[in-house]
């Protein structure tokens, strides 16, 4: 029996492995694969080869280290069943992280509003601290973080664009005699910064913002701080 043509299948498979198929084409692909049957070696080779191509494309991007403790957290989640414990998904932690950002946004909003109208408002959500950075730059920027934790988020309004090819970079100083440590870069969108994630030290006495070359910033400040605040 003559082999069924694979031209249309190949066109659908390449888009499928790139996750670019529209729903109608995804259905068409499944129908064609079913017509060819699971024993079609050509279909299997096309899928296998192109999936490898797509997987290899991932290497174009630089790897990013997993956060501290990620491997152990994964192992704990993986082995819960063996220990007879209920299995929360890792996404529970993810949902927690998204709630953290939402709570941090509330804390920041309180801080920004307090700064705008000159009042100290009601206590922020438990465990969170805010630092309002001030200086020569227009707008307001608030760092929300939890003491002892390295994760933080920036919230701001009215910030100017840093300029073509430039980014804002946050720094923290672990101690008075230490150098500034890069905490992350961010760029406002229409003047706003909404939860830009940064990594601060567990202890620091000063935070500051400078304008640095984009897209990744600098290992050490190359310009004077435009915003800063003591911790």
């Amino acid at each position, binding site marked *: 029996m003559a082999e069924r043509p694979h031209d249309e299948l190949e066109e659908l498979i390449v888009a499928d492995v790139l996750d670019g198929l529209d729903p109608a084409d995804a259905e068409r692909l499944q129908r064609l694969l079913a017509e060819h049957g699971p024993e079609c070696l050509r279909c299997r080779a096309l899928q296998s080869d192109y999936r*490898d*191509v797509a997987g*290899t494309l991932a*290497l174009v991007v*630089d*790897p990013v280290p997993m956060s501290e403790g990620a491997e152990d957290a994964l192992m704990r989640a993986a082995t819960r069943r063996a220990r007879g414990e209920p299995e929360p998904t890792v996404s529970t932690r993810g949902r927690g992280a*998204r709630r953290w950002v939402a709570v941090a946004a509330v804390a920041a909003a309180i801080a920004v509003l307090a700064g705008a109208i000159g009042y100290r408002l009601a206590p922020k959500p438990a465990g969170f601290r805010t630092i309002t950075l001030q200086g020569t730059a227009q707008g307001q920027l608030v760092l929300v973080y939890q003491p002892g934790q390295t994760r933080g988020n920036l919230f701001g309004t009215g910030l100017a664009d840093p300029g073509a090819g430039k980014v804002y970079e946050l720094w923290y100083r672990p101690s008075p005699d230490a150098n500034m440590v890069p905490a992350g870069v961010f760029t406002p969108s229409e003047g706003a910064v909404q939860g830009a994630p940064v990594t601060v030290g567990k202890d620091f006495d000063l935070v500051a913002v400078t304008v640095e070359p984009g897209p*990744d910033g600098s290992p050490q400040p190359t310009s004077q701080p435009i915003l800063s605040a003591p911790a």
Partner: protein
Amino acid sequence: MAVRSIEDARDRDLVRRVGNGDEQAFRALFRRYGPVAKGVALRLVRQAFMAEEIVQEAFLALWRDPSAYREELGTVRGWLLSTVHHRAVDMVRREEAQRRRAGEPQREALEDIAQAVVDEVHLQDTRSRVREAMGELPEAQRQIIELMYFGGKSQSAIAAELDLPLGTVKSRTLLAMRRLRTKLVDEV
């Protein structure tokens, strides 16, 4: 199906051992591909903690059902990274749909890409080859691949964005992937 390389053979052995509950094998896979996977996910979702969550869930799925990987699906690396990519694209499209329903403006992506050091010579070598292969693609084809794979866009979305017929997007996708397949799969 033929093993493509020594690396693939080792990865398949690790997956087989994961199937036997071997935690060290699972850790080895995570250490080897976790950072690469996070880089891919981060490129799409733009939030470090969300990228990490996607990677962790993909690996957790592998632990719970190692038989989800079958040799006819290609290399372990390709299957793992494709799984992560698929989850990241799903998340991006869900969030975009939610924002459209809520009438919210598109969020501008916030970059949070950290510099990482690659200590695997083989991955470094492959990375150079992939970048070279992408660089050799005609600009029109490379643009399609970048929008689809690294931008998480569907073919129809790309056609609309570039004001191209859908058929043109499909044919450029196919041509690009054929070139990459010749360059990468046959040589890696």
